[in-house]
């Protein structure tokens, strides 16, 4: 029996598979396809203090083996999410991770504090890297000291374990990771999207209304693997890996690179069953490559 379970701060996961934030809404739509209780955890769409209307459309574009998105943190606000979405998700036998975002330190604190009030949220994913929020989000995610500050603030505002979601749009991912680790992060989540753009030839304008968007999907997997590999050697907190995962082999590649669990984003759009199918396939793949558990594979690809 291949053991898929994995223990992370605040998260006893039955398996390392979770849908990535923003790619699964609050689970409602996907619950029509399969029992969400099968998932290791669900990472909810980003929550801000009050509701946000998001960016104008078009908000998505297709690229070679990837896509751009600039949703712009549209969400009904943390209180509404607690009321309607967390309570909905809590019916499933899975862990709930709340992705939190904000424009100011105070907003992050407010959201973190609010999620603290429910027993159903098991961890926070601190989104300091959403490239589509202009008010300051981009600063938090690319400056180590800013990232440390928001991590500290959120740790103080909440008792929940905090996974800081790192942006790949930086020169030195390792110093970002070290800064948030020193500031008290319980784990890391990486990578968020890489800022990109597409120009629509007929209109001669950026296709995404927001001009730039975040690149996700298989196109960015090599960047995710590289960053996780580098960071996992330099920090002592676990990493939730993501970026282009499409199948169980990809999951194993992330584990070998140093991730302890993974999130699956863009692939849900092509196949709403993807997380469920990967959970079914993972034991075979682990065995095929000689592993008896998820735990055993973590960091095994690292050459010292």
């Amino acid at each position, binding site marked *: 029996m291949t053991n898929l379970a994995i223990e992370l701060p605040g998260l006893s996961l039955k398996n390392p598979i979770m849908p990535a934030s*923003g*790619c*699964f*809404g609050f689970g*409602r*739509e*996907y619950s*029509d*396809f399969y029992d969400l209780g099968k998932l290791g955890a669900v990472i909810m*769409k980003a929550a801000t203090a009050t509701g946000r*209307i*998001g960016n104008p*459309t*078009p*908000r*998505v*574009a*297709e*690229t070679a*083996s*990837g*896509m751009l*998105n600039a*949703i712009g943190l*549209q969400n009904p606000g943390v209180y509404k999410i607690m009321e309607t979405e967390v309570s909905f998700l809590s019916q499933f036998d899975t862990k709930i991770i709340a992705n939190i975002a904000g424009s100011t330190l105070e907003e992050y604190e407010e959201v973190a504090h609010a999620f603290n009030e429910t027993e159903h949220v098991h961890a926070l994913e601190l989104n300091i890297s959403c490239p589509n929020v202009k008010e300051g989000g981009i600063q938090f995610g690319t400056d180590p000291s800013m990232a440390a500050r928001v991590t500290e603030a959120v740790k103080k505002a909440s008792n929940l374990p905090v996974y800081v979601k790192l942006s790949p749009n930086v020169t030195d991912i390792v110093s970002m990771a070290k800064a948030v680790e020193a500031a008290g992060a319980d784990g890391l989540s990486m990578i968020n999207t890489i800022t990109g753009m597409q120009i629509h030839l007929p209109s001669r304008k950026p296709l995404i209304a927001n001009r730039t968007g975040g690149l996700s*999907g*298989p196109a960015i997997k090599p960047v995710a693997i590289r960053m996780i590999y580098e960071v996992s050697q330099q920090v002592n907190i676990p990493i939730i890996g993501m970026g282009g995962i499409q199948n169980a082999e990809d999951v194993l590649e992330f584990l070998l690179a140093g991730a302890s669990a993974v999130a699956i984003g*863009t692939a*849900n*759009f*092509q*196949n*709403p*069953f993807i997380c469920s199918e990967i959970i079914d396939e993972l034991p075979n793949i682990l065995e095929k490559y000689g592993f008896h558990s998820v735990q055993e594979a973590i960091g095994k690809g690292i050459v010292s």
Partner: protein
Amino acid sequence: MIKKDKMKIVSTRCIAKDTIEMVLENQFISGIAVPGQFLHIQVGKHILRRPISIADCNKELNQITILFKINGVGTDELANYQQGEYLDVLGPLGNGFTTDGESKSTVLLIGGGIGVPPLYYLGKTLKENGINIVTILGFQQKDNVFYEQQFQELGETFIVTDNGSYGHKGFVTDVIDQVGRFDCYYSCGPIPMLKALTAKLKGKKGFISLEERMGCGIGACFACVLPTKDGTSYKKICKDGPVFQAEEVTL
């Protein structure tokens, strides 16, 4: 209910310039499809599925017809699929048109270009319910025209082309005045057409079907939103739409 399933290509043919008619077979999806809904089709290895309206549905034969224009890489690839091959489809998606009109009433269908397809299944369904159908179809030019015959079988049909190379010259709005009394309208087509139309038919009861670039197609990713009139909220085209009351949305 939405299903992700294989649909067998029963036939595929070119019916007008760059315009393909494809008949697909799947019992479940055809069994529950209503007019105005769409299919989210996986084409090759593309990261995003392609949304295509249900243009017709034959519940006895378990068949759904789609009509699409070659408009980019995905639709170009889709046009190359052959009879007997299977498509991976998510559907039926969206809300569809409300077709609870009283029998004996008259409805006007107004379609522009590749907005024509969903109106056909709608018109057929309405007619089966005893409703009178009048149709106006706008195309760029003569070789883009399709399904004229099919709509004529439903009722009076006006064809309009931008350059007058076939039917009336001009825009669909130019011939509306030639249509007699109607109780309600249903429309699908490019935004400028819908704008002109809803302005001209202001106050009339009407439904319009909208398009937007989509991610998930099922309401989870917030890609395809449309702000509501008051600007404080939004609708998802893939889930709350693609059909909206004309008064409900800002184009």
